[in-house]
């Protein structure tokens, strides 16, 4: 059929262009000549104004809109562009070829129309027939024949395509669904239904042709061909909102589309169709001027007082207003159902998603043979078989291998049937053989739930995995810290062991010497026994201090914090070490002001710190002119104690080292210092425990100054303590 239409279109084009060329260049001397003649005929001049005065810009605009919609939505256009379309790529070519065709066929419209008006001025010849009457008047029989053939082919082509398109629609979307709904059992029993389909369509064709003739008889006399066309264009335009909305708007629903169509057609019928009947005298035309039931606001062609438009624009305005309003309004009343959402996805995302969305949502089982039989019943058994074979080849199956149909095959069968009996009926028929478990809204919701649950799970999983990664990192860090601590502990153990072994070595060696030599000289004997005792003392001190430090470091030390007068502590410590200073003949200077605020600390611990600092100072004092000074000073937020000696001093690089465990710093001039190497580390920890600092300042050769600070005790407690003292 498409080939026939194509040929018809070409014939029409050739005939029309031929008569156009004849009129333009045969009767006149080209376009310019025809338009020249306008100036000599004033009554035609108004036609040459681009916008005829009667209709105005709105009329022109309405016509353009209507024509554009007609190109898309007229049944025959739809039939050719969509139903008969076998290849989507053809649409691209049609997109430029069809407008070009329209342009070509319209080039000579004005010359022919003007030529006719000029030529038959005052003779009352129907303008619709100019293309025939012009060549006839010049006795060009062959051209007349060509034009007649062209016109005939144009008319028949239009009629054929239109009626076939309409009959297919009537058959697929009206008759079959009704039949299937009311006589389903009978349909299932009948074996071959292709005959039934054919007869339905034939009847529809006859009916449509009769209706067309009827309208022509009733309204045709009053209207030109163009006017009839415009009335039907306006009707067809009512499909536009639902179709365009369906392609671009997800929110559209079935109810909205039906409401929009109903409203649009109702308004169209009232404002355009009924008036056309009335003007033909088939209806009383009283309601045209007085409005329905005498209400002026309801005048069909000046609805609600809207005047100043031509009837087409007027109809278009009100029908679109009602149509779009009802479509959007009703659609928004409730959210789309699952089926509508699926459809919307198929159409709106058609360019995005090439996957068969519909197929993905189909669940069920069907035998291939059942489907093939079903298709055969409507398309004929032979055609059904060949179509299925071709499909199998395309999918890469040898025919007959597939017994169970998959979703794609079911959809394929459905689309085949849809071409014959419409998509709604096709779905019903396929459902009758495919044991589909139809997707209810609950199930769709369930599927969506599962999907969202999966998403939740995967998010949860992601979160868990992130947490795990973080935990692993923490664990790694903790492990590294532990390993570090372990290494430190190992070092300390090793140091402690070393420190313990050293005095033990001396003790054992001296003991064995004494044991093995009973006749040892008395001075040696006394000296060795003295060394054994001092090494044993060193050992005891070492053990005590190691345990003490371990206790402080592990936080298990007992602290007896109370307000203390730091001056008193210092004086007590000096008294305890006075013997040491006397031995070294050291001069001790004190600078200890009275009435300083109290500090908060543990009395015994603080004395321990002072004793350590004082004994350290004594240890390094020079043999001559030994001097030690102890200074107590008030600072902004606490007290500062300085213990200054005039010993050798400490090298800058050693000033931090001496606060590490077992790190004793000797001097080449002096022997290795006695002591455990734990005094300063312990002292520093004690001071820091009470919020203070302990550090050393020293220039080598000029002595060393050990300083520590301790913050004031909180004011309230201090006042209380002073009050108690008072």
């Amino acid at each position, binding site marked *: 059929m498409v080939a026939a239409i194509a040929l018809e279109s070409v014939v029409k084009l050739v005939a029309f262009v031929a008569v156009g060329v004849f009129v333009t260049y045969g009767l006149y001397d080209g376009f310019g000549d025809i338009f020249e003649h306008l100036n000599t005929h004033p009554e035609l001049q108004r036609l040459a104004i681009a916008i005829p005065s009667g209709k105005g810009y709105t009329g022109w605009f309405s016509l353009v809109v209507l024509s554009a919609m007609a190109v898309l939505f007229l049944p025959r256009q739809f039939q050719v562009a969509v139903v008969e379309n076998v290849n989507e790529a053809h649409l691209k070519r049609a997109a430029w070829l069809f407008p070009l065709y329209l342009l070509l066929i319209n080039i000579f419209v004005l010359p022919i129309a003007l030529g006719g008006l000029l030529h038959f001025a005052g003779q009352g010849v129907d303008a619709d027939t100019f293309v025939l009457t012009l060549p006839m008047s010049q006795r060009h029989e062959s051209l007349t024949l060509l034009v007649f053939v062209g016109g005939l082919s144009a008319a028949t082509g239009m009629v054929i395509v239109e009626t076939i398109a309409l009959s297919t629609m009537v058959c697929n979307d009206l008759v079959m669904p009704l039949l299937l709904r009311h006589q389903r059992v009978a349909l299932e029993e009948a074996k071959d239904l292709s005959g039934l389909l054919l007869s339905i369509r034939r009847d529809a064709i006859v009916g449509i042709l009769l209706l067309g003739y009827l309208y022509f008889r009733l309204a045709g006399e009053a209207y030109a061909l163009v006017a009839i066309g415009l009335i039907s264009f306006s009707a067809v335009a009512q499909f536009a909102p639902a179709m365009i909305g369906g392609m671009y708007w997800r929110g559209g629903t079935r109810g909205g589309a039906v409401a929009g169509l109903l409203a649009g057609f109702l308004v169209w019928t009232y404002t355009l169709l009924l008036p056309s009947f009335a003007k033909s005298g088939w209806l009383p035309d009283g309601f045209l001027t007085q409005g329905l039931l005498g209400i002026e606001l309801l005048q069909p062609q000046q609805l609600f007082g809207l005047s100043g438009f031509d009837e087409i624009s007027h109809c278009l305005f009100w029908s679109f207003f009602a149509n779009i309003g009802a479509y959007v309004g009703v659609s928004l009343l409730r959210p789309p159902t699952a089926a509508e959402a699926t459809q919307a996805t198929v159409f709106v995302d058609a360019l995005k998603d090439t996957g068969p969305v519909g197929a993905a949502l189909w669940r069920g089982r069907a035998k291939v043979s059942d489907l093939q039989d079903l298709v055969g019943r409507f398309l004929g058994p032979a055609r059904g078989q060949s179509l299925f074979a071709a499909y199998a080849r395309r999918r890469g199956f040898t025919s007959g291998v597939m017994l169970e149909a998959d979703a794609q095959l079911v959809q394929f069968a459905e689309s085949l049937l849809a071409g014959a009996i419409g998509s709604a009926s096709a779905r019903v028929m396929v459902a009758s053989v495919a044991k589909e478990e139809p997707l209810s809204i609950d199930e769709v919701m369930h599927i969506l739930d599962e999907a969202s649950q999966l998403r939740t799970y995967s998010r949860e999983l992601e979160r868990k995995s992130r947490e795990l990664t973080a935990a692993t990192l923490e664990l790694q860090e903790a492990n590294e810290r532990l390993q570090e601590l372990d290494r430190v502990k190992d070092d300390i153990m*090793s140091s402690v*062991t*070393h*420190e313990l*072994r*050293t*005095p*033990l*070595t*001396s*003790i*054992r*060696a*001296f003991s*064995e*010497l004494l044991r*093995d*030599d009973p006749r040892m000289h008395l001075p*040696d004997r006394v000296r*060795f026994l003295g*060394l054994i005792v001092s*090494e044993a003392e060193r050992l005891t001190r070492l053990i005590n201090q190691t345990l003490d430090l371990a206790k402080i470091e592990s936080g298990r030390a007992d602290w007896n914090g109370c307000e203390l007068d730091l001056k008193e502590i210092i004086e007590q410590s000096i008294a305890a070490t006075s013997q040491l200073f006397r031995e070294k003949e050291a001069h001790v200077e004190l600078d200890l002001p009275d009435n300083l605020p109290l500090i908060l600390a543990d009395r015994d611990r603080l004395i321990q710190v002072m004793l350590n600092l004082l004994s350290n100072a004594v240890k390094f004092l020079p043999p001559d002119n030994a001097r030690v000074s102890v200074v107590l000073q008030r600072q902004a937020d606490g007290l500062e104690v300085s213990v200054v000696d005039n010993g050798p001093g400490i090298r800058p690089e050693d000033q931090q080292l001496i606060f590490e465990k077992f790190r004793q710093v*000797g001097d*080449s001039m002096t*022997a*290795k210092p006695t002591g455990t190497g734990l005094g300063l580390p312990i002292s520093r920890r004690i001071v820091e425990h009470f919020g203070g600092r302990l550090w050393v300042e020293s220039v080598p050769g000029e002595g060393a100054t050990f300083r520590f600070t301790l913050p004031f005790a909180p004011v309230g407690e201090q006042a209380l303590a002073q009050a108690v003292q008072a």
Partner: protein
Amino acid sequence: MSKKILIADDEQNIVISIEFLLRREGFAVLVASDGEEALAKVRAERPDLVLLDVMMPKMNGFDVCQALRADPDLSSTRILMLTAKGRDTEVSKGLGLGADGYMTKPFSTKELLAEVRKLLGM
């Protein structure tokens, strides 16, 4: 002629005890209290044996041992390492660096004498 032995240790009391022990046994005894001093005295006095403490100021026993073994003139000098860290790694490190013997503190004076005599081939 009596054998000459150098005691290198920074622990005064240990030096005193070993010095007394060795003199009583008839050895000539030298003393050093740090690594550098020990190295200098070995080069100057050429003792037959060095009792070398590992943990010493300025230059530890391992470094002194290495320096001694790097000097071909001193190849006949015996080295007995003394350490308070009795770990296997320390022992093998000392022996790997060329020490002839190894004793862990605290040691028995009898064993020390036996080891000293063995190293001196007596």
